Structures are given as structure tokens and as C-alpha cells.
């Protein structure tokens, strides 16, 4: 957002892009079609299933070029324009090809105060890319993200619309990058709140293996 204030320019989408998915691959399998029909049956109109269907398409094709959005629209029998509007609304739908791992570093309010930009810049320097860019080997894309709802464990980042990495430090980023290069995805980690620490051994989420206790930061002299 801060960058957007400095360079407040919105781009025009490519109006006549060449297709990137070969025509012979551009279809859903019977199983996927059946899945989409199940989703459609859960809503009063087919529009309701557009987000799940787009998500399925993104998992299948990696990203959502216009021809894939068209495919989803045709499958749901809704106007192409509707599906395209939904796809552009959410940053989690990738409209262009991204790296294998997309690192969304939160720089929104809480993370910014706790060093979100330091983490972003460290990552940019370490991978030698600017935010929004993909490394030359095509493994990492670094992005700046708005609030991801984990302010308690700020600063944090998210890996490809999935796993969160909490309480970021430079060391943690180093370890994360090394692990991802070896395709070792960090496990889901539940961050518990301080008041939980006395109960259940500090972990209310008995269903997850990895927990990390919330660390209360130092409180400023003036607020004390």
C-alpha cells in the first residue's frame, strides 16, 4: 500500500493476450467437472461456485490466464466477464505465471510496526529480486501483502496462499529459503495466545503438532 501511494499507477490489463495454456490441455477432467457440479448444487445460482472453481483451476494450471478464466466461466455457464471480475478482485488468484513458491510478506499495520518491511527488504536482497518479481530460477516470487490476519505473531509471511511463517527473523528466513529450495514445506504451526499457556500445556489446538507460544513484545515506557 505504501508503495501504491508513491507510485499510484494502475495498469491496463493486456486486452488481447496470446493463450499460454495449449488447447489440448485446456479442459477439466471428468472428476473435476463432477466436483464443480457438486459445488454448484450447493448454491442457489452457479455464480456461487465461481470462487471454488477458479481455485480448482489455479491448482490445476498453476495460474489463471484469460483462457482458463473462460474455461471456468463456460463450465459454470456464467458470463466470462463475471468470472474475470472475480479473478481480478482477489490477489490470491494469480493472473500471471508466478514462481513455484510465492512469498507474501505482510507489511500491513502490525507487521509494519514490528519490522515487516525489514523482512521484505531482507528477502528481496537475499533473493536478488524486487517485490512482485520472480527469481531467475523460477522458484520464488516475493510479494508485499496486505493484512493476513496474524497480527499477534507479526511480522509474518505466507507461502503460496497456504502455510504461515510467524515471528519472522532474518535467521528464520534463511532457514525457510534453504528448506524450500529442498522442497521441504514448513509444517502448519498454531500460535497460541498467552492466556492459553496454562491450559492444555499451552496448546488449545490439540489437533496440531506444531505450536509456538505467542511472545509478548517489550512494552514502551510511555504506555506503561
Amino acid at each position, binding site marked *: 500500500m505504501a508503495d501504491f501511494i508513491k507510485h499510484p499507477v494502475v495498469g491496463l*490489463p*493486456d486486452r488481447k493476450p496470446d493463450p499460454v495454456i495449449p488447447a489440448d490441455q485446456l479442459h477439466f477432467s471428468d472428476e473435476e467437472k463432477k466436483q464443480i457440479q457438486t459445488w454448484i448444487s450447493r448454491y442457489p445460482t452457479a455464480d456461487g461456485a465461481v470462487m471454488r472453481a477458479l481455485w480448482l483451476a489455479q491448482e490445476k494450471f498453476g495460474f489463471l490466464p484469460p483462457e482458463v478464466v473462460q474455461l471456468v466461466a463456460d463450465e459454470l455457464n456464467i*458470463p*466470462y466477464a463475471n468470472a*474475470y*471480475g472475480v479473478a*481480478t*478482485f482477489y490477489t490470491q488468484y494469480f493472473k500471471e505465471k508466478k514462481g513455484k513458491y510465492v512469498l507474501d510478506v505482510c507489511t500491513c499495520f502490525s507487521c509494519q510496526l514490528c519490522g515487516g518491511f525489514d523482512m521484505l527488504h531482507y528477502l528481496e536482497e537475499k533473493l536478488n529480486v524486487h517485490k512482485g518479481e520472480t527469481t531467475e530460477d523460477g522458484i520464488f516470487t516475493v510479494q508485499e501483502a496486505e493484512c493476513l490476519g496474524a497480527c499477534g505473531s507479526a511480522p509474518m509471511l505466507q507461502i503460496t496462499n497456504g502455510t504461515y511463517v510467524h515471528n519472522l527473523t532474518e535467521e528464520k528466513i534463511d532457514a525457510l529459503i534453504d528448506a524450500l529450495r529442498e522442497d521441504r514445506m514448513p509444517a502448519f504451526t498454531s500460535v497460541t495466545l498467552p492466556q492459553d499457556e496454562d491450559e492444555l500445556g499451552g496448546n488449545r489446538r490439540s489437533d496440531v503438532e506444531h505450536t509456538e507460544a505467542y511472545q509478548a513484545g517489550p512494552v514502551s515506557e510511555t504506555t506503561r
Partner: protein
Amino acid sequence: MPTITIDNQTFEFEGQHGLLQFCLDNGVDLPHFCYHPAMSAPANCRQCLVEVGMPQRDRATGEISTDEDGNPLIQFMPKLQTSCSMQMADGMVVQTHRSSELVKRAQKDTLEFLLINHPLDCPICDQAGHCPLQNQAYKHGPEGSRFEFEKVHKPKHIDLGPRVVLDGERCINCTRCVRFTREVSKSDQLTIIERGVKNYPMTPPGVEFNEPYSMNVIDICPVGALTSKDHRFKARIWEMSKTASVSTVGAKGSNCYYWVKDNQIMKVTPRTNMDVNEFWLADEERLEYRKFNEDRPDGPTVEGAPVSWELAWKAAADCLSGVDGSRILFLGSAWATVEDNYLLAKMADAVGASAPVYLPHVEEGHGDGWLRTDDRTPNAQGCERLGIHAASAQDLKARLEAGEIDVLYVMEDDPVASGVCSVADLAGIKVVLHHYNTTNQTLQAADVALPAAMAVETVGTFVNVDGHAQRLRPAKAIAGVNRTLSMEIGKCRADRHGTPFDKWYNESNLINCQPGWVALPAVAAALGHEMTYKGPKQIMEEVSASNPAFKGATYSAMGELGVRLESTGVTA
């Protein structure tokens, strides 16, 4: 009957009403952007906020609670409500910006939000002068902006399609254009892309905004985000006069305004008539206005040589006199008004010829069941009701080739271009031609050519495909003095702009032509037949009184919105 109190004034109502529409219908003006009566109310501009309350009811008894004076206690909803999406209920109490400081403040703040990223380019914006955002910012908005950062920049002057240009920065995301393509024209070519401050309307990749009704989004756009490629930077709104009239492009007779500057039609926009075209106008009806400005003749000619009107009437009469009536072919026109066709039929009768016929201009498959029709003429139904019937080009060709015709009297049509005959075929035949444009191919064969006033320069009546009789009003002046036309121009323009009575009057681009209701009586007079009328109004009175197919179609009855004539079973 249920009642509603708006600004301490009580109204009675029946049935289900949206609050905003009810207010607008009853003269309570409320600012709004996204609401349009023909489309769903998404309530996303937040400009029509009002305070809404209902009488408080005692929970135990269900009785309406009253204060010590016996007045019902009103429980207002905790937040302001969007009046566009609010359904009215009995006993409802509404406070608008006239009675509520809170509403006033909310409208002002909403406008400040809408204007945060809106560019200050009103001086070069085509919408300036008739821009709801501009008007409402003056009326209800803050005096200045507190936003001191650089504004968000979005794509500007983007070709959305062949006829519509987008300026993304001016857009306030009311979604009227998107809802138009989704709900009214059903082309689904537009959507809002991106989110938050970055969003603007766009076609999806690979799609062009080219539907045949695309230009309607220009009218419903409450800002200058969507403008007409054709009219861009041509004229400011206050430089033009507008005249309520009828489109000439199809048989639907869509109601429209003709916008005139310096006696030239600059653009055509829709005029609301719920019986005919509702709020809309097809693109073809907006763009076919150059025929009114370009290739217009300058005065009458006899054998190609310019002459005075008096000599031209005489020459036309000479062509007709002394010829056996059965050897004269009168060609009426579905482009011409009912009045003019009626006079032509009268003249044919006077010289002993059979009733005129007209050439149909039907393009199969052009119509879409909405505003575009297969028939490309505005008055075929009017001709049929007058007893002037369609004649195929082949039949006429056969009659010409058989040598049955000595004189061809053509009113406002082009038999050569319609394939009736070639110029060479007309060599031995006298041709009198009332024509609109110098591109008329019959002109080369015409012995007497009489330039005719077009639909934007005359007074008259068209009957549309459904039998709706509607009046034409003169949008621009013609050369020469005609009291009836001047009076009509003065009457039908509220601002009297461009009439001889105002300071804007100018003499550029005046076409030297005559309306049919002047030309035909003049020719008839030269022939020795009296056809004296004070003007088209009197002609139409005679038609409506004498012909049951036009019962009730007088000028006063037709007014602005026309009269639905009784079905006669005739189809054009």
C-alpha cells in the same frame, strides 16, 4: 391507505415502492449515482442515504407507543439507510438532507470520498455541464478536498470498443454500465476489475465492447468515464440546443433528442418514453446523423440548373400537366411524414392518377426484437394506414420497362439506388424528385429536383411499427422564412436556443430546402389545384378526422410521447 412521512410531509401510497423512486416521482429530490429505474439497486454509491424510522410498538400489546401529546414515537434505524434499496412501509418516517443534519453531513462526506481520486479535469471533460457528480458536488459536496496526496492514476482514454471510450480515473464505480450489459442488453461484455482504489470497468481480455446498444452506457454514466468516440471534444453541452423528436433510423421510432450547434446535428441521445424505447437508443440511431448535415442540396434545380423556388414549382407542374393521370407514377416515401404522404395522395387523386405506392426498405435479419427493426424506415406503418402500399422494385421496374409511365413523381426516396431502374432507363420519362441528399442517385435523371426538409427540419408525424403515432419537431432551422417552423422551434426548445429570437442565432449551415407540406401545395397550386393548409397541424387534424386508422392522432393529443393508434390489421 398506507402513508409515509418524508421531511414532515405525508404522502399516501399503494403497493410496493422503492423509497428513492417514490421520492423522485413526488418531487423530493435526492442525490444519487448508482440507482437507475431500469436496473437493480446495488446501493454502492452511498449517496442517497436517509434517516428511516418506524413507529415504536409496545412489545406486549403490539400497540403503537405514543408520547404524552398522542403522537407516535418514532424509532429510527441506528444507521443511515440507502433509500434506493429501501422498500416503503406503512407509517415509515423519512428524513432527508432537508430535515436532518446527519444526512446532510453523510452526503457531503460521501462526495468527499468519491472525489478523492476523481481527476479535476472538468474543463476538458465532455460530461461537464450535465454531470451528476459535478452538479451534486456543487449542491451537496464539501467546499474543498482534505486529501493532499497524489491521486491514484488509472488507464485513460481506452478504446473499450468501436464506439465507447473509457477514462478509468473519472469512474466512481457505480456499476451502472456493468449492470446495463448484464441486465438490460444482456451482452455481459463489461465487468469491474481489480478492487479498492484500483478498480474500474473493463471488458475481459479478448472481448471488445461492441454490442449494438453499447452507447447507452455513455448516457447512464453519472461521470465522464464513458464518453462517445464519435462526439468526443466536438461540442460542450451548453453550446447545443436539444429538441425532443423521433429517430428516423428504424421502424421502432425511438424517442430521442437532437442536439444542434450552428444548425448542424451534433449528436442524438435517447428520450424516455416507456411505451416505445424506455430509456434506450440503439447505436445506429445515434450515429446516423451525418445525413442531416452532409451532402445536402442548395436550392431547387431544373434540368440541373439552379432556379428560384417559384420557377421550380412551375416546372414541376409543367411535367404533370397535360399528361393522362394513368401514365403518372407517384412514389410516396416511408422516410416522409404522414402529412406529406397524405398531400401526395391528394395530389395524385387530383390529377387522376392511382394512389401512390412506396418502396419498402427492409433488411431481413437486421432487427433484434428490441429497438432495431428489419424495416429501416420510420414511417412505413403511416404510409400503409394512408392507403399507400408497398410496391416491390421488380413490379415498378416491369411497369417502367413496359412503357406505361410517362412521369415519375418521387417524394423523398431514391428509386435508382433501390434497384427500380437505372438512370438510363429514365431517359424518356419526366422525373420530379423531392430529395434529401445530393448523393441521391436518381438526381442525375431528375428533370425537376426539389430539395426536401429532413425529419430534423420539419413538423410532422411518424407512425411506428406498433402503431404509435409520434410528432417530429424541427431541431434546426432551414434557409428562408417559414413562420410555422420558427414558431415550432421557439415552442419546443425551453431555452429557445438557436431560434431567430435569441442571441445565439446564426445563419451558418442553413439548408435551402422546403418541407413537403410547403412544396406539394405549391406544385398543386401551380397545376391549378387548391390545397391550402395553414400548416401540418391542420393537415393532421384533417387526416385524423377523415381516416379511422388515425383516429385521435391530433398534435395536441400526441404531445411529447405520442398516441397509440388502434390496430387496423395492416402491417407495414
